[in-house]
């Protein structure tokens, strides 16, 4: 797997590059800011781009804007956006740019190398990865009443895993149930929430996340 790393902190850039190299991932380039990243991606076509949201010059959302631009320009490259702070809004913005092959993770997740490798693997295969923190906030946001009330506890767990971007098989693994049970749960949930029942996983993620985000308080 060929990866380009973008982070303004040299410490993290180098640390992450070494760690990925240890895992046999080829870090073909690193950048300290978003300048020139788009060109490098277009030119060298890495499998994945790992990019920090907050970078020079304004330390706002340069990384996110760059990710969305690159998404449009080079859809074949998977993008993992890392952020020191999680904002559900940024997850939504990212998903609205196309859910296939994108990920949005809290930055400290990289200190758990397994999570990082897993996420990279999933997005490179066209999947979607949404940080559990985002999903937790969306699902657990206090609401007066609504369709979510109709979900059972188990269905809520399934909903969260769906929103994080997991496949039915992975959901079954996580919940230690057989895949058919998981599929039934998924189908029930989508019906209860009036979402298309048989969308592909990546579409499903954005549908669920957007639905949750737009659910009134």
């Amino acid at each position, binding site marked *: 797997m060929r990866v380009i790393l973008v982070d303004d902190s040299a410490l993290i850039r180098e*640390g992450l590059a070494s760690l990925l190299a240890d895992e046999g991932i080829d870090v073909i380039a690193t950048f300290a800011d978003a300048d020139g990243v788009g060109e490098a991606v277009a030119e060298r076509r890495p499998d994945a781009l790992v990019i920090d949201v*907050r970078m020079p010059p304004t330390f*706002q959302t340069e990384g996110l804007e760059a990710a969305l631009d690159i998404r449009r320009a080079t859809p074949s490259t998977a993008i993992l956006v890392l952020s*020191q*702070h999680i*904002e559900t809004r940024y997850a939504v913005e990212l998903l609205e740019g196309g859910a296939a092959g994108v990920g949005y993770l809290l930055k*400290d997740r990289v200190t*758990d190398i397994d999570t990082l490798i897993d996420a990279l693997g999933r997005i490179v295969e066209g999947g979607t990865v949404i940080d559990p923190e985002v999903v937790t906030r969306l699902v657990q946001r*206090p609401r007066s009443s609504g369709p979510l009330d109709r979900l059972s506890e188990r269905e809520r767990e399934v909903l969260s895993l769906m929103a994080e971007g997991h496949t039915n098989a992975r959901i079954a693994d996580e919940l230690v149930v057989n895949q058919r049970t998981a599929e039934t749960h998924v189908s029930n949930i989508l019906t209860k929430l009036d979402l298309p029942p048989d969308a592909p996983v990546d579409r499903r993620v954005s549908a669920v996340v957007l639905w949750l985000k737009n659910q009134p308080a």
Partner: protein
Amino acid sequence: MGFHPRYAVALALGVALALAATIWSISESRDRAGLPVIELLRVEALPAPSSSRIDDHLNRLFAAWNGERPWTDEELEARIEPPLLEAIGGTAAAVNTSDAAARAVIGQRRFVDMAEQLPNFARVIAVADNGDPFVLTMVLSEAGQVQGLLVDDLPSPPPLRGWAAALALATAWLFLFSGAAADRYGREQQAWGLLAGSLVSCSAVLVLSRSELVYTAGRVLPVLAVAVAVWLLGDAGPRRARRWLWVVAGAAVVVGALAPLTRDAARIGHPPLIGAFADDPTVYRALLSLAAALVGVTMAGVAAVNLGDLGRLSRWRRPPGWAAATAAGMWAVAAFGSAADYAAGDGDWAGGSLLGITWVAFGAVAAVIALELVASRWDSPELASLVIDLDAEGSELQPAIARALEDASVQVVVSDDGETLLDETGAEVDGEALPAGRSLTLIRSNGTTVGGLVHDAALNTNRARVEAVAAAAGLALEVGRLNRQVLAQLEDVTESRARIVRASDAARRRIERDLHDGAQQRLVGLGLTIQRARRLSGATIDSERGALLEAASRELREIIEDIRAVSRGSNPALLVERGLAAAVDALAERAPVPVRLAVDDDPLPDAVATTVYFVVAEALANMAKHAEASSASVSICRHGGEARVQITDDGQGGATMTHGSGLQGLDDRVAAAGGTLTIDSGPGGTTLEACIPCA
């Protein structure tokens, strides 16, 4: 009483003199009431006599008076002589046909004019001891000998000269009163003029004296009345006109004083003080006529100045102005009348109705000033209203002062350095070089000149009023200055409070940046290193080393999480990056209860949005901690020139802005932005509303 000390002394002397003159004139007239003849009032020419007509006339009169029978010498001696002797001073030995006696009578002052004018026949009006006037008719020989006397009743004219003295005394008292009042009301210059008027009026009774010197003084001093009248003009009218009036009045006084000296001292048998003219009444009459004419010119001038000033005078000075002009005009007419009278040769400075008119006019001047003083007393409510009005400042000050002074032309000038006076256009005003008819009154506050009023010079006759208005204006200017000072200080404080808030916001951002770029990044880096160490050492999660490293990793992630919690609260990154609605939505997401949002799309200025954000953040945090609410709502809208944010919950209330609470800090922040924060907290819930102006 508040008189000026010097004036109090002079006033006391004036009162003493007026009292003495009054008492003396009363006692004098009482003394004379016992005399058979009090006053000689009028010398009247009869048609040039012929012997037959005289005889006819005499016969008719004698017959009518004495029962158709000629008077005998004895009868004349018994019935005519005593009253006649009394009338002429009692120095003649007899009144009959004897030459010596006749000359003795004619030698008396009263008969001189008569003898000179009418060698043969004369009529004298006198007053008998019973108070009735009667006529003495003397028949004189060619040689001037008295050939006979007739006494006839005469119902008129009245004894005007006594009236003139009474009028002069009344005028003296009126002047004293007006002078006292003028000094009391701060019109010192007028006060002295009025006191002088009183002295001059008192002097008019001196002519009642039998002492030749006192009598002469009584003749000379009243002519000073004309000078007093000019004095009392103060600074009315053009300066040049006043200068000429002084010259003419001075001439009138000199000439008027000279005239009696050439003649009148002879009243009781003494030669005139200027003896050279003793035998020539022409000079006396010419001087009297000239003096009267000069007085007439002066008083016509005074009337003209008063009339000329009318247009410039304020409402409250106009009636006195008319009255003064009328009095001066009346005086002028009387003076011209006297001049004509004297020129015709039969006037008398001391007697005659014209003199009475003059005293009435002179008294009217004092009355006018008294009236004006009373009028100025009526002004005090206006002064009070001025002080109230003088909350007014700047552009409203001039109209308020113009109303109080009744002078629309008044101009307010201000001084910042206590010396230079500037008008409203910023041009310098030189108090020494004002246009004619303008006058400057300085406005002082705490001993410093803070400005001035440039007003009509006519107002200077009422200094008390001008000073009172200036004092009130000084108050207003001082209040205005303090207002401006306080406003400037308030502005400073507001500005510095805003600066403190900005500085604290900047500090928050710096802390957040430092945490983000420093501690957080380095801890993540450390986490990566630990991970690498674990991989490189080949330690599995099950090994002791692997478990330790994993525990370190986990601990590290918790630390990072803690730091994130700190830095997230200190910087509304989303507010900067995605705006107020997104930032408030993120706040609502983290709230423990459902929060309904209604946020206008209309963007707010950055500083206002930041304040609104912190209001919502603090309100929701407060609600999470204390309210035990089940739901809340946040609405943000832009209404008119201000942003309104309202946060409502259905909790248990009890939110207060106690010192040191988060809400107190919030109130400070909102106030720093020029807004207001209100809290309504009770059992039904809490509503917190902030209104922040959008500049």
